[in-house]
């Protein structure tokens, strides 16, 4: 269980990046955070990961307060961030500590297989394509079996074909150990493909707006009517967050009021 309570971030120059964020994500749930650039999505993720300190509020995982990177929280960044001096296999095993050699090899091998890179374990990261590198990064995050996985626009630099393949592999890995996933994205299709819930963020200061529940069985067919309907609902929520309703004068209401 990941709980975010009244989380705020104000930078030293007075800019308020996030204000009063409250969110709880159930074990095994996938939540997508969506919003335009500059709305504080990445800032929120970094606070939850313990990479930055919040100005106010708390983050808890299974009741434990998070102030620094936590063993039960895994992160996949926007860039693969592989260590270029380690082989692909050793990058995948980077977060494993204190394991016997055979156990280490077995777990790394299994993870590489899951992301379809079993034959590439001995290569250098620079020899892989961008999509393959991001798969290595995803495998690296899953290998220590985190209870919460944070993904910061992990597929935004990839083409649509690669992205679709990676969505399927991410869901496969998730299905095995069912960690809680919080994924930041600006791609509505990606949010609807992956998430149980889509939370819309609003900028300046960043805050949570509407939540759209996606109750579709997996795997989701992107050309089905229900999928398209879900995309439309998220789009509508995005629109409302961009153009919040102002207190408009309603002549009909005034007339009714006057009549009374």
């Amino acid at each position, binding site marked *: 269980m990941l709980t975010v309570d009244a989380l705020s971030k104000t930078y030293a120059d007075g800019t308020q990046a996030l204000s009063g964020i409250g969110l709880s994500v159930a074990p095994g749930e996938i939540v997508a955070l969506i919003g335009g650039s500059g709305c504080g999505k990445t800032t929120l993720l970094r606070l939850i990961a313990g990479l930055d300190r919040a100005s106010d509020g708390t983050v808890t995982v299974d009741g434990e307060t998070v102030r620094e990177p936590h063993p039960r929280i895994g*992160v996949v960044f926007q860039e693969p*961030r592989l*260590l*270029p*001096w380690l082989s692909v296999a050793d990058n995948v095993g*980077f977060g494993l500590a204190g394991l016997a050699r055979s156990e280490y090899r077995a777990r790394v091998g299994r993870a590489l297989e899951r992301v379809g890179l079993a034959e590439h374990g001995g290569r250098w990261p*620079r020899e892989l394509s961008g999509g393959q590198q991001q798969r290595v990064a995803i495998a690296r995050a899953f290998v*220590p079996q985190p209870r919460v996985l944070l993904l910061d626009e992990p597929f935004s630099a990839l083409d649509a074909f690669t992205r679709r393949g990676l969505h399927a592999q991410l869901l496969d890995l998730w299905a095995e150990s069912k960690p809680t996933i919080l994924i930041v994205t600006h791609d509505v299709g990606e949010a609807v493909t992956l998430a149980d819930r889509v939370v819309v963020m609003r900028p300046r200061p960043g805050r949570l707006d509407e939540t759209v529940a996606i109750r579709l069985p997996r795997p989701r067919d992107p050309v089905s009517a229900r999928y398209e309907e879900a995309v439309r609902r998220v789009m509508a929520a995005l629109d409302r967050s961009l153009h919040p309703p102002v207190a408009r004068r309603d002549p009909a209401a005034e007339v009714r009021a006057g009549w009374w």
Partner: protein
Amino acid sequence: MPSLRQGGQAGLALALALALPLALAAGWEMAVDTGAASGRLLPPPSRIGATLWELAASGDLLVHVEATLIRVGLGFLFGAAAGILMGTAVAMLPLVRRICDPSLQALRAVPSLAWVPLFILWFGILETPKILLIAVGVFFPVYVGVSGAIASVDRKLVEVGRIYRLSRGAMARRILLPAILPATLVGLRTGLGLGFLFVVAAELMGASEGLGYLLVDGQQLGKPDQILAAIIAFALAGKLADTLFVVLTRPLTRWQDTVRESL
């Protein structure tokens, strides 16, 4: 067979590279041989070869090469160690950087040979000033390389280390050290080259052995063949040391994109 063709191309490149010096050497040899030139100030290759052979046969050459290599080795060791220490301190500790870096940058601007008279005055003409001069030459490229490398370590990779809660020691060993290794090795290699540059100056300031001594001795006794023999020995020793350095350190940077093949 691509490998065969590559081998052939490499052979051709070598032949082309050697053509000019070999032709000049052969031409000069013939000019002296036929009496068109005296060869007094620029001896023909055969006489240089003979001098080199005599020096080698008598064991003198070995003594001189050994003396020079020991000086370069010690100077490199001290200079590189100081460069790595200072470079690390300056990059890691902002206060040390603000206090030391401006002065070091200013000292770097001093042509290192300008220290020679001062070093002689301070330390005499024995080994101390020679090794110190070489160490000064080695220090600066290593210092600049290490401090620059540490300052430019990718913060994003450090964050990966933080996500996996690496201790300070593990962070240094698993992230910082490998990240700064390439630039550090470049600094060390440059330093080694400068070490060979400075050993000449060091040995010119008075020595009874060493390749630099052979140069001075050849000048004073009017033996240009000995001077040229010493120059050739310098070139071979320097090239050998550089090649050795590259071969020994290449496995450490195998992961890099840029292949350091041009020796």
